[in-house]
């Protein structure tokens, strides 16, 4: 694989640093070289900055210009960061007039967007190197039945994101099956996790949504959940714990960030992947993983 400017994103760096530590280790073992860029800031987040799209573009272009200086594509761990950085990168590459206005604003900090790099999500790198990934599986995750939740912002709009079919995403399922686990189908597969709704809307609505989604996963026969976005991870972990408490229903569907599953399949222990930081745990799933070991 190759070198990338590493963009873990604020959510992982601030709230879920164990995923940053694990990602560095696992991607490193797969031969992905991650280069730290000290001055990267928030991507910035698209929902809040949608009130001023020009500022959103200029701040994103600033991050892109830092990677351009190093001559490196960006690799991110977060669907939201991918959405912002890829959208702005594509808009500015394709619109000279807009690029001129953005560069005029960037000139205040002596920076320039030139349109020299691409923005990648780690899941894209892995699916493109599936055979190499399979060669690292030492302990197939047999017995795990996983509901895959790809998330919204890596899928849409498909003409920009280009990752998978937004109506019927299957790439995360393929990645999960490459580890020896079973990816189960469920009817609310493309329903949002509700994390952003819990921020901008009401917690009650987000919990009702989560209850529908988790019930759908259970009807599909899932024993665990896989995600590729830290916000989705947080929602299915902390959000599930709080929804279960408030609604008086135990779903017991532990969620794994995909790189945690990959690490487990590579022979890491639950403790080494940071399972102690998870809120939702399930003894049966732990046992299945121990047996797989």
């Amino acid at each position: 694989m190759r070198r990338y400017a590493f963009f873990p994103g604020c959510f992982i760096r601030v709230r879920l640093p164990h995923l940053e530590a694990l990602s560095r280790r696992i991607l490193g073992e797969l031969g992905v070289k991650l280069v730290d860029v000290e001055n990267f800031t928030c991507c910035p987040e698209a929902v809040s900055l949608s009130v001023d799209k020009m500022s959103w573009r200029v701040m994103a272009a600033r991050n892109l210009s830092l990677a351009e200086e190093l001559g490196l594509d960006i690799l991110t761990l977060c669907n939201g960061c991918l959405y912002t950085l890829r959208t702005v990168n594509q808009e500015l590459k394709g619109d000279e007039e807009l690029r001129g206005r953005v560069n005029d604003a960037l000139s205040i900090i002596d920076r320039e967007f030139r349109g020299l790099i691409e923005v990648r999500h780690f899941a894209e790198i892995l699916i493109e190197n599936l055979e190499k990934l399979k060669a690292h599986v030492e302990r197939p995750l047999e017995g795990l039945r996983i509901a895959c939740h790809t998330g919204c912002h890596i899928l849409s709009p498909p003409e920009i994101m280009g990752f998978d079919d937004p109506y019927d995403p299957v790439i995360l399922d393929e990645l999960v099956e490459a580890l020896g686990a079973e990816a189960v189908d469920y009817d609310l597969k493309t329903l949002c996790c509700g994390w952003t709704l819990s921020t901008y809307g009401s917690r009650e609505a987000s919990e009702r949504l989560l209850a529908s989604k988790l019930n759908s996963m259970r009807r599909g026969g899932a024993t665990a959940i896989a995600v590729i976005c830290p916000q989705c991870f947080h929602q299915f972990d902390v959000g599930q714990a709080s929804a279960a408490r408030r609604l008086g229903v135990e779903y017991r569907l532990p969620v794994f960030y995909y790189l945690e599953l990959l690490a487990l399949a590579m022979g890491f222990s639950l403790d080494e992947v940071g399972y102690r930081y998870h809120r939702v745990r399930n003894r049966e799933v732990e046992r299945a993983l121990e047996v797989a070991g």
Partner: protein
Amino acid sequence: MRSPHPLRARPIVIGVAEACLRCVVCCAVETHFCHVQFEEGFDERYTYVYHCLSAPDPASNPGIWLCTACHKCEEACPYETSPLRFIEAAKAEAYKRGLAPRLLTGIIAQITSTGYLFPITPSTMRRRAELGLKPLTTEAAEELRQIALKTGLAEPRGEP
């Protein structure tokens, strides 16, 4: 007759509001639909998208802030309408008029003053140290502050 609200004179807003046939596909067809429907008060007859598109002054409708830019409404709509573009235009107008909720202005201030979307707490720093990760620094935010001044993001907002 009262003249339409200035926001309603914008081509995106007119286009979306007029193209929408209120068919409710974007909000009421299970499997690929707007998740804001889970908020109290919306159902298959009174949808979130209808709520946004039909408000007399879309920018002062607090409901616009529930949209999370997931694009599902665009994808579900059989008539190639984009409620998201309508809602984003309304949000931008609301921000200019000082109608954005404090949560949102607080998030923007957080990003431009620290460079991070979330506050860095002592427990963040402790956990990063335990995991052998570098501490987080906020120096880069100075460039975001300068950008915000240049683009006008940092200007005080409110009704003239």
